[in-house]
């Protein structure tokens, strides 16, 4: 896969949709192209996070460790980005990601991603919007879950 095709893939990602193509090209050029075979770990929950991955081709599953064992919480597909939380707030990986098919990714190193965010405010705004949207959804789901939990409790009593 050449840089040009990676660039096209990047532009298809909503997070980067409004970013100037030259800057995206720089991001693609300074990032590493990494492939995974089915079953290989992209990242492991609890490990220190040093990079985010953009899926260019293939699919991956996201697992979270719970007291009852691993639970699959999401399936990632083309154009999804994963691992950006660990980069942005310096916490260990919040989930385990496993390739389910042959997976092509663009590995954006922590520094490269942070550079992009700090130097190009439009990317920062995009990332903020994306994260805020996710936070909004998460909060909504949390309130739904808490409501359900409260209902289950009351029905038990």
């Amino acid at each position, binding site marked *: 896969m*050449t840089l*040009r095709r*990676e660039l096209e893939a990047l532009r298809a990602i909503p997070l980067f949709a409004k970013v100037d193509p030259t800057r995206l*090209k*720089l991001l693609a050029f300074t990032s590493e192209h*990494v492939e995974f075979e089915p079953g290989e770990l*992209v990242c492991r929950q609890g490990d220190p996070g040093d990079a985010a991955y953009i899926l260019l081709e293939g699919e991956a599953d996201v697992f979270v460790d719970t007291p009852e064992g691993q639970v699959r919480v999401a399936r990632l597909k083309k154009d999804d980005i994963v691992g950006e939380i660990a980069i942005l707030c310096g916490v260990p990986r919040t989930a385990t990601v496993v390739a389910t098919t042959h997976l092509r990714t663009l590995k954006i190193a922590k520094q490269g991603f942070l*550079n992009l965010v700090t130097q190009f405010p439009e990317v920062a705004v995009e990332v903020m919007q994306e994260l805020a949207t996710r936070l909004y959804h998460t909060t909504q789901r949390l309130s739904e879950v808490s409501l359900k939990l409260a209902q289950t409790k009351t029905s038990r009593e």
Partner: protein
Amino acid sequence: MEPTIFRFILKYSWRQQLIILALTLLSFPPLYYSLELPKLIINRALGDPDGPWVLFGYDLDRTHYLFALCGLFLLLVLIGGGLKYVLNVYAGIVAERMLRRLRYQLYQSVLRFPLAHFRKVSQGELVQMINAETEALGGFVGDAVAVPAFQGGTLLTILTFMFMQDPTLGLAAIALYPLQIYFVPKLQRQVNELAKQRIRQVRRNAERISETCTAIREIHTHGTARYELARFSRQLGEIFWIRFAIYKKKFLIKFLNNFIAQLGPFFFFSIGGWLVIHGDITLGALVAVVAAHKDLSAPWKELLTYYQNLYDVRVKYEQTISQFVHPDLQPLERLVGESGSSPSFSNGVLKVTDLTLKEDSGENILEGIALELTLPAHIALIGPAGGGREELSLVLAGLVSPSAGRVTVNGVALHELSEPLRAEKIAFIANQPILLSGTIADNLVYGLKRRPVSGSAGNPAPHGLQPRERREALASGNSLDDPNAEWIDWEALGLSAPEQRLSAMIHALRVVALDRDVYALGLKGVLPPGREELASRLLEARRAMRARLASDPRLSRLVEPFDPERYNTNATVAENLLFGHPVGRVFDLHRLPAHPYVRSILNEVGLIDDLVRVGYRLAEMMVELFANLPADHEYYRQFSFIAPDDLPFFKSILQRTTIDRLDRLKSHERDRLLELPFKLVVARHRLGLIDEELQHRILSARRRFRERLPPSYAGAVAFFDPERYNPAASVQENVLFGKIVYGQAQAHERVHALLLEILAQHDLKDTVIEIGLQTDCGVGCSRLSLPQRQKLAIAREILRRPQMLVLHEATAVLDAIERDAVRSAILNEMKGRSVIWSLEDHAAAHQFDHVIVLERGRVVAQGTFAEVREHARIPPPVFEAAS
């Protein structure tokens, strides 16, 4: 050291000075006779046609007489010249020996300074004093006797001659000397005062430069280059003004001297002329006196210069010496002495009685400390920073002598032991690693080099100095030890076999978890000379590696092997072309296309135009990608093919021409474009610029390059050969014989795990560490990271197995995760031996048998961890973490 330069000269070179004096006196007769002979030739051989011509009792005819006299003249000139030559060389040797002796003594003083003194002296000034300022002193030593003897003698001879011609004229010749003798020294004193100032100023300069080097990162961090430039410029200005004043005075002296010298003829012509007119002396005598006066001025000038030098040198010497005299210089015997026996520290009692340590200001840093510790024990010193922990650990390590009180081990006073004896038993590790230039191994064994090792099987003589070196060292009072002799005292550790030594070193590295780092360095290192026998074993490992890669497709896709017939997409174009490792600088990979031979090969396969086109495309991309980045952006270093300064150059090429019209470019512009693609790695950069057809042609260039390589370049490349070890390539490249591919998840980790596995199977892991130990780690080991350096500093002490290890915050610079592990490993290693550890982290004290709490220089509590913990003055939260 001698207080004045004359005492120094007399004490160490009076014999040589006498020889110089004798040689000088010897040179007078030939000189005199070589002046006398011309007269004889003119008066007797030429002027007297009747003879008899007798020489040394032989009656000769006139021609023979003439030639005999001429021959004699030549002989005297030769003897005179020869004597002068011998005298000069000898005086030079004496001067150099004295210089060597002086520098050696000054350096010795540096070693003898008490530790605290180093807070006050500037490194740059010391360097300046020992190296530059002593130079003038050395030169003077050779002249000290020779110049006054020779020039004074000449002067006297000529003066005598003049007085014999006519006392009045003689008096006239020296009439103004008293004036010179009076004025010149006065002026000279002022010049010397200025010269002193200049010396001080130059020292300050030296200090400034050395401080700039030390603090270079701070200067860049704070962006204070402009301020530093201004400061330095100011200092140079000071020197300028001093020099300006010196010049004014110095040349005034010269003017006076010249003027007075010229006054001589004035007197001769006026007084002498008057005398001639009145018939008191002959015209011939006046001419002779004028001629003699001309000869007089040279030695007189020399004597005056000598006098000026003398004064200057005296001041310089005293000024230099005063910097190296210190009331508390340690006796030399303590530094190198081996007499007496050192007590065993392995068990017994370490007793501290009424220990006090004063600062320069007179304040007590440690006060009334009394301890009685049963060895072996692991002892922790805790307490606030600045409470005396550091100083107490230095005193207990024997490095700082107490102002009052004693430290004894089994009754022997610690501070009366000589350093080598003490160092054998006690090791000290501070919180900042200080390492020396050289390899990792050099640093690791540094603590074992206390004395040259004698008598072991391979090294018969302890003092292996060449006789010539030894003679000279003796003549200048220098060390008679040979630094190239075997100094590493393995026998003291009971390690006689080389394998045991290696495993002891590896063990020391393992205690501080540095073995992995050194192994990694070993993988990148090349086989050291003299270990060629390892090549075949490493080749064995290469075969095993290839077999493993071939058998497992999951692994084989992580490595792209070196194949003479295939283009390696994970290597640069330059590497693909060369297919080997450059030896020396002929085929430097960074400047490959500039080499005429490489150029001719590229030309033959018609690659130049294509690569220039690729270069053009690459320049286009780089200009597009990097145009908007600031010039100091780290991406340039990491990713760009073009340095920020060169970007405008390529931009202008792009603007002036299109890719179809590259022939319009000037040849140096095409050259620059041609250079660009040589750094391209197909798999890494993914630019699609080196297609298969181009790869194919690079391969044919590779073949031609090797086939046609002229014999003169034969040694300049070590080609890759699947069946041969490549001595210029790293261990990793040789065993892997390929490139780790880009773009495979965790390829590096997995390939390195495989490498480790295979090297371990072939019993080569220690060998790789051994190669890693030979890595040169730069000035002060600056190529290693701070934690790595600190670990090396710890391993250095672990290796020499001290009976007592004293540490001050020794693990503080390590990462939080490693700190505990390394501390535990050190304590475990020191089981059964004593440890005294000044801890920055109180919580760690629970690992120790005995804890001493220091506050404001006093012991406020001691006992087991549990006992001390109860002590009210320790804030409880400090201990929370441990429980």
